[in-house]
């Protein structure tokens, strides 16, 4: 895997850091949208290389973090039904619902399994015709094509015991919501490279224009992130509100046409609730009418369960970049990855967990 040596090259990273230091004349706040980027910024200690005047805000781009509690409760209620196999990606299992997480439901006897692809869940449904197999379809635009493909194949092959619990969210409406917030302090964005590999960059131009901010489509390796920051800072210094693509090796300007066609075939855009952010209009996907038979919420009649959140958790502010994890009174005390109070402490992409795990070493003074 060449990209590991090429895009983690220490000399390149340091040279970019040097160039950034030479460019900056004023303080700037930049948000990386994607949890994968947050994870790597923390893992590689990249903030240590930035001038003090640059602050990074960590965005809501962690699918696990923004899945609403009500849906997690719903997934647990479905998993507890007889003859159901509930499948999900790994870190979803530890996200606290109102009363418990999916791991605890599994310990109570529910059949909850980790899969690596929605197509694995579909295969499981074919192998277990006497069970209902439900895939908890969370994620941004990145995971939407694979989830759409699972539904498409289920329809084509008439796999009637397969359904998905949809919690799909979209990046551009979230950026709109963040920028319209009166408390917003973000001046530039690093857009998520993998999301744009599907959607392309066109949706970001109107945002850059409307709010007068630069957006740089950025990859995930240290060199990518540093280059993304360098471009974003340069644009901020020059006062240019445009979209640039640092990740052109992966992101074509128009995205991935077959993937987008598949998404449009299966899903339609709808309002979505985001954990910590509330309901954002037109910010997610729902199954189209023609595929509603694969909607787990229709297949299982689960009454709405009143959901509970920890009252002291400031996850919403952290996800909006208004507060840092360290400003939360629960951070490291009542809230740790072992006993998470809010979702950003669960996933390694969540800002709180990333800070907890990789927090910068306090240099001994």
């Amino acid at each position, binding site marked *: 895997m060449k990209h*590991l040596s090429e895009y983690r090259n220490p000399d390149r990273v340091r040279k970019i850091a040097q160039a950034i230091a030479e460019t900056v004349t004023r303080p700037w706040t930049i948000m990386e949208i994607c949890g994968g980027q947050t994870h790597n910024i923390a893992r590689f200690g990249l903030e240590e290389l930035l001038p003090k005047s640059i602050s990074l805000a960590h965005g809501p781009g962690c699918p696990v973090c923004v899945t609403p509690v009500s849906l997690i409760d719903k997934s647990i209620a479905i998993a507890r039904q007889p003859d159901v196999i509930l499948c999900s990606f*790994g*870190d979803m299992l530890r996200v606290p619902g109102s009363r418990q997480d999916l791991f605890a439901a599994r310990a109570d006897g529910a059949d909850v399994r980790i899969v*690596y692809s929605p197509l694995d869940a579909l295969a499981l449904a074919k192998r277990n015709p006497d069970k209902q197999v439900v895939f908890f379809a969370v994620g941004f635009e990145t995971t939407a094509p694979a989830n759409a493909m699972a539904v498409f194949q289920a329809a084509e092959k008439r796999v009637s015991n397969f359904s998905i619990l949809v919690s799909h969210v979209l990046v551009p409406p979230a950026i709109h919501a963040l920028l319209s917030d009166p408390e917003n302090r973000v001046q530039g964005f690093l857009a998520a490279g993998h999301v744009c590999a599907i959607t392309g960059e066109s949706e970001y131009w109107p945002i850059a224009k409307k709010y007068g901010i630069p957006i740089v489509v950025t990859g995930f390796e240290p060199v990518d992130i540093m280059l993304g920051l360098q471009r974003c800072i340069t644009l901020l210094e020059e006062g240019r509100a445009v979209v640039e693509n640092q990740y052109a090796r992966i992101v074509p300007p128009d995205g991935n046409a077959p993937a987008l066609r598949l998404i449009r075939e299966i899903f339609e855009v709808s309002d979505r609730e985001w954990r910590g952010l509330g309901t954002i209009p037109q910010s997610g996907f729902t199954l189209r009418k023609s595929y509603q038979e694969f909607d787990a919420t229709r297949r299982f009649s689960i009454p709405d369960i009143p959901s509970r959140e920890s009252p002291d958790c400031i996850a919403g502010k952290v996800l909006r970049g208004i507060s840092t994890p360290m400003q939360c009174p629960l951070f490291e005390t009542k809230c740790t990855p072992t006993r998470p109070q809010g979702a950003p402490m669960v996933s390694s992409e969540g800002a709180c967990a990333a800070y907890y795990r990789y927090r910068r070493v306090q240099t001994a003074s």
Partner: protein
Amino acid sequence: MPTKKQLTCPIPQSDYPKITLAHGGGGLLSNELVDKIFAPVFNDPLLYERHDGARTNVKTGEIAFSTDSHVVKPLFFPGGDIGKLAVCGTVNDIAMCGAKPEFLSVGFILEEGLPMETLWQVVLSMKEAAKSAGVRIVTGDTKVVEHGKGDGIYINTSGIGQIISPTPISPASIQTGDAIILSGDIGRHGVAVMAAREGLQFESHIQSDCAPLNRMIEALFDENIEVRCLRDLTRGGLATALVEIASSSKQSIEVLETTIPVKPEVESACELLGLDPLFVANEGRCIAIVPEKAYDLTINTMKRFACGRGACRIGVIEKTSGSPQATLRTAIGTHRLLSLFSGEQLPRIC
């Protein structure tokens, strides 16, 4: 007496091709397992006594005593199987106490329906591992659980060894300036097992590092190296071992990312699954903390053994100011604080 060449199970297929509940009942079928499989394969005079336990003489002095249970799935994976793992697990734990492992007990929990041939292969593999470690399997027990109540085979091993280190091997013995030596590349066992698991669709040729480390450790004492602390890097991997040592020794540790060997295949698999090789399990790797002046000799001694061929120096024990911590100096030159994972490392979504 079976030799390595005898690859088929001596219990005729027509009799009992699979384990039944009666094999754990203590009656004739239990005896048959002992007579035809365990006793002849492990082939130890103490086993032939058919006593309730093993009676033997040991040298007087300090002993180390340890136990380890194994529930790995799948039972066979590239580079090893549950039998080899069960022997190496306890052997390595005893070696890490600064002792020479001598006797093992084996407790099998078998699931009704387990193919006899599978048990046979596992037992043969235990024999090989015990031979390579130079330990004797001298007592054991078998229970059978109903079909569906187990994963084929669970194995517990316990063991006793004679302490051979002249000074206590413990985090408390660590001193500022000591060198941290890693015995080889990390992450192979965890990735090999994960790749072999059903449902994970990527091809890999990664072999588990599963191996007994005791002869390599004994060689360090033969060379009169003043070993301060030893730790095998099992669940939780290198990072967890470093964090635990820092916390119990009250000393700070710094390791250099660029000096920690990770095979490119392991690194790629970890990238794909969203895992961090520093936290991935190993079953044949350890760290030795030794005085700085002894690090050359330690590495050269380790390199004489297949399990230590990749031995290298990865860091130092630092002067502690404030709370002790384990840090990684990244290739980029930044610092990352290592801390314990809660539970298992879970693959990330994207």
